[in-house]
């Protein structure tokens, strides 16, 4: 890649700044939604929202969810079967357990509260996936701009390490790798909310 092309560099910086602007909005909106909903939700529902937020903010869970499809499946399976991965650390297990318990409590509540919580959790999931997609775009654009090698296959592999979600990996395999996404990637699911609440 022509790393010295000032126009390419300008677009890279511009896109990075615009992505950062969206992320700033996203964080602000998530905080606002949680604060606003705290005024109207009962304590149990609010606990669920906060625990769910903690789940995304957990380094342990994020690492598991972003780096390894097997572990993502393991996390989702754990929420469904009330069992946890043997190799999960205790903090991650506690957070999952809190969310799962909160979901069970909210499911028993009336339609209005359930609808409200469903939207709030969905909004948080939307924000998190958006963050990952924007980060993937910016990081891979950076790899392209900095191109430390002329080996195209290596460049693509470097870019791929920044793709963590199903949709972005699917897009990357289709448009850059020009091959079908590996079967193990097909098993990545993003519908955590749907599995939790339905």
């Amino acid at each position, binding site marked *: 890649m022509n790393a010295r092309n000032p126009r390419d560099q300008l677009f890279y910086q511009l896109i990075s700044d615009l992505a950062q602007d969206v992320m700033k909005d996203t964080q602000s909106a998530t905080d606002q939604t949680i604060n606003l909903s705290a005024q109207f939700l009962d304590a149990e529902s609010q606990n669920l929202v906060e625990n769910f937020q903690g789940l995304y903010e957990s380094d342990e869970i994020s690492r598991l969810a972003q780096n390894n499809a097997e572990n993502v499946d393991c996390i989702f399976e754990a929420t469904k079967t009330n069992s946890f991965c043997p190799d999960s650390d205790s903090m991650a297990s506690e957070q999952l357990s809190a969310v799962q318990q909160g979901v069970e409590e909210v499911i028993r509540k009336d339609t209005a509260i359930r609808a409200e919580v469903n939207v709030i959790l969905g*909004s948080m999931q939307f924000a998190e996936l*958006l963050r990952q997609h924007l980060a993937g775009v910016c990081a891979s654009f950076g790899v392209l701009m900095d191109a430390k090698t002329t080996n195209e296959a290596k460049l693509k592999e470097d870019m791929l390490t920044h793709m963590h979600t199903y949709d972005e990996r699917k897009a990357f395999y289709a448009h850059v790798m020009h091959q079908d996404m590996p079967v193990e990637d097909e098993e990545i699911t993003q519908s955590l909310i749907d599995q939790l609440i339905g």
Partner: protein
Amino acid sequence: MDQRNTELALDWLNYAQASLDSRIQHAGQATEKVLVAVQAISSQLNDKQDLGALISLRSDQASTAEILHLLRDVLDHLDTQNDLAQLISPLFSTLQFEDRTRQKLESILGILSIWAEVRNEDITDKVLSARLMQHVVSLEQQAILAKYFPDYVQAEADDDDDDGIDFF
């Protein structure tokens, strides 16, 4: 720039557009989810006066802007002392955020397209900044663009500006 690198850049661009487009689609699904939630809450209110249009609305029959307009109107008439009615307010905020995000993502997609168009063209900063401004949808984005084109883009909106751009 050699041909292979140009091809890789264009491939990357197609990936980036597909990746961001998937989030725009997700925003659309989120809008539908919010509407369903608002309708579920509205249908439980004792006083359903003025709620008929909202309750019967289908997301595939209205734009997000139309849904927001209708919801704003409903919020203005709801009993602020009613707990159920109060649940709708955060949902309105969520819908606004998702719609704003969708517009900003579409803006980034437009700017990425311009990159593909101009990367091998010899055009002036004045022309480039004007083309980029066509995709700007917010004051924050305008301020960012002004950083890179201080001679051609103002960091703040001009009160006398009458270019028809409806920023949020």
